[in-house]
């Protein structure tokens, strides 16, 4: 079971990945540096001088950043509290997170479309509670897009953060508290550093995946949100735009793969440092 056998066993999978992922991606990169049949950086220049592309790239990063901040803000206390529950309650909570993790993105986007509309459950509820006097515009704009994306991305943050918190012993908190630290202080300076790699993994997942969102902003944004993936989809139908679209795709690919690689490297280093201590 050496060399040759391993190659034979893995080859079919590699052929599929090569044909369906690597070859088209390389072709896209090649198209991005070709202008009128010659090698040129024309498309990249256009990318960085066209106002539309600048706005879209900025919006894509801003949207991803907003979603990431909200996911960290909700997900960190969730993962921590959940990790301190009795094992039964803990498993039930994480079971629900896992179910939502796997639930179809399209289905969830549809559900939010229904819930957030003018006469939807959320607006009706807020009116009944007297929070607002007339329905708010919650969907077909940025707000709706952010809500839908947070709902989809939250499990991607909670799951790694939770498994990191699970390894923090209760004694750490008790020791800090007995030395006079407030609960918040004990959490920030004693618990958080121990779970840093899990939180960093979750944060990277959310940010990187948010950069590539298409379906949710296209359906919940109502044309008021334009992300780089949406621009790619639009340019698809215009043959003359394929070059610039390929350059935009290359930038998106570099951002995603680059960020993922940097995070992987940093987190790996951190874990090694933990081990060395």
């Amino acid at each position: 079971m050496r060399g040759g056998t391993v190659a034979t066993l893995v080859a079919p999978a590699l052929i599929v990945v090569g044909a369906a992922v690597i070859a088209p991606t390389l072709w896209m990169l090649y198209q991005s540096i070709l202008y009128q049949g010659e090698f040129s950086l024309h498309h990249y220049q256009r990318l960085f001088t066209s106002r539309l592309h600048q706005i879209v790239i900025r919006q894509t990063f801003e949207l991803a950043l907003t979603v990431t901040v909200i996911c960290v803000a909700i997900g960190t206390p969730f993962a921590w509290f959940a990790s301190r529950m009795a094992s039964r309650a803990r498993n039930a909570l994480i079971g629900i997170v896992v179910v939502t993790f796997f639930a179809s993105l399209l289905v969830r986007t549809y559900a939010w479309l229904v819930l957030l509309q003018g006469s939807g459950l959320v607006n009706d509820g807020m009116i009944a509670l007297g929070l607002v006097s007339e329905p708010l515009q919650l969907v077909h704009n940025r707000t709706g897009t952010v809500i839908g994306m947070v709902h989809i991305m939250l499990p991607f943050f909670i799951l790694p953060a939770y498994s990191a918190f699970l390894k923090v012993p209760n004694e750490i908190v008790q020791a800090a508290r007995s030395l006079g630290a407030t609960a918040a202080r004990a959490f920030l300076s004693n618990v958080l550093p121990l779970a840093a790699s899990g939180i960093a993994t979750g944060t990277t997942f959310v940010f990187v995946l948010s950069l590539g969102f298409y379906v949710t902003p296209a359906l919940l944004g109502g044309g008021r949100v334009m992300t780089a993936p949406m621009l790619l989809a639009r340019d698809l139908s215009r043959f003359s735009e394929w070059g610039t679209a390929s350059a935009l795709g290359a930038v998106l690919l570099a951002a995603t793969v680059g960020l993922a690689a940097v995070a992987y490297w940093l987190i790996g280093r951190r874990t090694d440092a933990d081990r060395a201590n």
Partner: protein
Amino acid sequence: MRWLPTFFLMGAVAFLILPILIVIPMSFSVGSYLAFPPTDWGTQNFQALWVRPEWRDALLYSLKVAALVTALALPIGTAAAFGLEYASERWRSVLRMFVLLPLVVPLILLGFALYVVYAQLGWLNWTPGLVLSHLSLAIPYVTLAVGVGVQALDRERFLAARLCGADQARAFRDAILPQLYPSLMAGGLFAFVASFDEAVIALFIASGENSTITRQMFTSLRDRIDPTVSAVSTLLLMITLSLVLASALRDRKTNRS
């Protein structure tokens, strides 16, 4: 202050699960697509899924593609799982990275790049073209799921079968394969869902007569919402739930043996 964490957890869980659950009662509502809670109840959305040709054809087409993808991904992904297990330390991480690559590249980029390539090859709206791209998404899931089973294999059973006179193929079939059934089932379900639930690539490279159900659903949500969407949603949720249950079951069995 003790109730605060519980209160927060309940709120967050409600935020996560309730929007998903409302889809089920909505699929049994009659009339206006966006009314929740529904005023009248009935199964007309599910009937429409079968009676209206655009939905039925898309559903059947998606089932066909997902079945093909699963049938191909299971042997290819399982072979890769064995290959990774037997590879030397150094090669394993490189090979694993390549096999798992499709999970890292944003779907929108794959959709765009595939459209451009397929347009030149004349492969747009061609079933084998869609199957190939979905296959690349499904194989990593099978390799991951079966890999767990391969690591937990009791190899002595294989030797025992060989000692009892079985040839290699027979020993593999009778002594190794049954141990992998739970992993294969989980991997197969993952592969099926990876294809059946995929909306972005299909949006670009599968249109016209070869529209998938997710593409049909996306265009309906974008242009003119059709209540049939809620029936499709319930169907997709049921498949997801069976996926989670199957992998939970697999973990139990693997832990026990």
